């Protein structure tokens, strides 16, 4: 039976935008989100372009729009397992993992404090630990705790069972949805630094990724916003940014990840705002500052303690005696190769599509890198970074475009 509903896979900025655009025109929309919370990668940022807002700024409006719009139905901890049918008439099977937490949203922080188990916090990219009953961020949406049942110790289980709002007996569910069109907004993941063997492969103590830097700078992050070295909690005086860490590289990601140059300039500003004496060096192949971003780059590079050096860092090593990091680089303008000591090194790792190495149960063509390159004739549209590396603004634009195409597909059915 034909349907004028729309399925959106992925509840990040692109998915939310596409869903709301379609819902506000009157279509029923289902958002399927794999993690326990909406908001995606933007939730993990300290500030985001173009206006350097904190994530709560843009996302809370989106959350409000979702709450106020009965056309939007979202499922967290959910994954599409099967898609049958054809354009205008899809039957989608969704598996929903149990959250073990009821629909009301009480503050369970007292209970969390009592629990003894600690688990590596993936939301903080391993910079801190979390309890097995948790929320990612204070403004997480939905405002409901989630229980990581597999990580609960026996003692913790007893405590959780006593809580009226949590229910460890909840079972996995499978639902079926009828939709006419599908928007895929599965987004991106940071490129795995362990592949970057010459850049320390994630094993150098104070060599972090740019997404870890976002968490360090975030007021809701592991250091409450103070940029400190992970190894000893010291304030860094010399910070290096290593551009193209895995991007524009035949051995890793073949393409430019678009946003890392801007991210590093932005993060250089985080460092300089906190530490008036700190020096920042950005090592790059080409500083790519598209469009109006160039004005931002000019402003940042005017800071006399921010240096930009043309030359790709090709060796990152831990100091033999301490926690400092040694970086080897050739300044391609002055033709000098040097080994420099830094307190903190940030790898500007690129965006890899979430679908790289994974697959959706949907028959859409993806390229060798995992970006979606087709499927429109089937009423399936890619939005955001599932399609190509983008910033938040362009991701939202691409989501609006995908929503428009999805609406045209289901219109009149």
């Amino acid at each position: 039976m034909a349907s004028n509903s729309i399925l959106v896979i992925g509840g990040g900025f692109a998915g939310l935008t596409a869903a709301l655009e379609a819902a506000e025109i009157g279509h029923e929309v289902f958002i399927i989100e794999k993690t326990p919370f909406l908001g995606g990668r933007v939730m993990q940022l300290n500030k985001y372009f173009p206006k350097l807002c904190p994530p709560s700024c843009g996302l809370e409006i989106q959350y409000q729009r979702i709450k106020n719009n009965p056309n939007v139905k979202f499922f967290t901890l959910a994954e599409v397992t099967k898609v049958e049918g054809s354009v205008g008439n899809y039957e989608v099977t969704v598996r929903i993992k149990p959250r073990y937490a009821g629909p009301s949203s009480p503050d369970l922080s007292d209970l969390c404090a009592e629990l003894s188990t600690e688990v590596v916090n993936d939301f903080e990219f391993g910079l801190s630990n979390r309890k097995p009953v948790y929320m990612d961020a204070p403004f997480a949406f939905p405002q409901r705790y989630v229980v990581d049942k597999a990580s609960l110790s026996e003692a913790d289980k007893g405590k959780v069972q006593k809580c009226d709002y949590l229910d460890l007996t909840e079972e996995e569910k499978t639902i079926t949805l009828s939709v006419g069109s599908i928007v895929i907004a599965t987004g991106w993941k940071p490129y795995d630094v362990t592949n970057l063997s010459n850049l320390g492969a994630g094993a150098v103590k104070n060599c972090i990724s740019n997404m870890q830097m976002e968490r360090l700078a975030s007021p809701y992050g592991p250091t409450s916003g103070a940029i400190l070295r992970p190894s000893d909690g010291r304030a860094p005086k010399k910070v290096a940014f290593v551009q193209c860490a895995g991007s524009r590289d035949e051995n890793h990601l073949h393409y430019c990840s678009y946003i890392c140059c801007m991210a590093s300039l932005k993060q250089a500003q985080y460092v300089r705002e906190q530490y008036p004496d700190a020096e920042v060096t950005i090592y790059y192949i080409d500083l790519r500052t598209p469009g109006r971003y160039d004005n931002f780059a000019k402003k940042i590079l005017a800071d006399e303690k921010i240096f930009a050096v043309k030359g790709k860092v090709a060796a990152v090593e831990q100091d033999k005696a301490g926690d400092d990091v040694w970086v080897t680089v050739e300044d391609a303008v002055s033709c000098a190769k040097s080994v420099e000591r830094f307190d903190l090194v940030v790898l500007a790792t690129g965006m890899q599509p979430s679908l790289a190495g994974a697959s959706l149960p949907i028959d859409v063509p993806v390229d060798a890198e995992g970006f979606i390159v087709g499927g429109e004739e089937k009423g399936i549209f890619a939005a955001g970074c599932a399609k190509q590396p983008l910033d938040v603004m362009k991701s939202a634009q691409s989501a609006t475009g995908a929503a428009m195409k999805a609406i045209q597909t289901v219109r009149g059915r």
Partner: protein
Amino acid sequence: MSKTIKIEPNLQFVKELQEVGGADLKKCYQCATCSVACPMSPADSPYPRKEMVWAQWGLKDKLVNDIDIWLCHNCGTCSELCPRGAKPGDLLGALRNMTYRTLVKPAIVGKWMSSPKHLPILAGIPMAIFAFIWMIRAALVGSFFPLTEDGKIVYGNLFPGDFTIDPLFGLVAIFVAICFGLGIKNMIDGFKANVPETFVIGYKRPTLKDAIIATIKYDVLQHSRFKNCVDSPADEERVKGHQILFYGFVACAIVTTVVAVGHWGGKVIPLLAPIGHTPMPLWHPVKILANIGAVLLVTGLTLLTRRRLNSDTKKSVSNYYDWYLLGVIWVVTLTGIGAQIFRLAGTAPLAFFTYYLHLVSIFMLIAYLPWSKLGHLVYRTTALIYARYVGRLPIDEKLIEDDKIFVI
């Protein structure tokens, strides 16, 4: 930019470089990963990034006088980490090939050595010379496969050292030595004009004599620089193979010298004569050394050939210069061993023919030396001595912690 540089691109040179092994040089986007990845690259004007841009721009003058192509020992780490697959390691190899081709005259030999299509000429020259000697001698002694009175095979009876082999190879050696001399002069003149002198606090500049001794002791005999270029088992096999092969050559060179000194010296001091008398019995110390040399050659060749056959073409592509040298050394080694075995077995026609091929291949190894990859024996050694002399050393060998590196 303090001074204006007029760029004079030589597009033909770019094409030639691409033909002799730098096929992917245009893929480079100047990120400088290679200069950092190289364990041998110095702090000031490191290589091979600058060579990549010179090659793309066709700056022939800069490249032909570049000492750095010889400091590279071709481990391939730069090519492995290259984000564009531009193979900087192969480009430096191509530049060395270019040097073999053009550094010394007569240029025609360089041209013959650059492509397999000229192989018939290169092989034809010694084949004709030795066939001519063979025919003359056969006419004189009355047999193409002459035996001694007691039925033994003595190669000297067909190709007598005194007035065929020794004068011929003596002239070849003089010719090669002169060519190398001119080559070294050309190289050093180029280096003087182009190599920056590095002033390092705490680094005492050696005398030329000390630089020569250190280079021969560490870089040549111990392969110590070469051993810095190891980051995989295949690299280790390469260094091992090269060193074994090198010592095989050293053993054979000692044998040849002893025989020559014994033979010619024996004419002045008769006491020396028996040392230079060939063929030697198998128990003779010099003969034992010769056979040890042969075993080393086969072992080294096997390691090096196996590595080339198994090497990842994404990392490095073997070219004609590589295969010519390996091929000729294989023929020299196998015909040398064969000539001994067939001589002892008494199979006259086969023994003489194998010995003939041995002479041909040795001629191909030695007479074309300055234009072949084996020329690196002289050119690289020259460059390494010069680099030591002016302090152009890998960054690790300097006082990097103190940041006391200055270029003047």
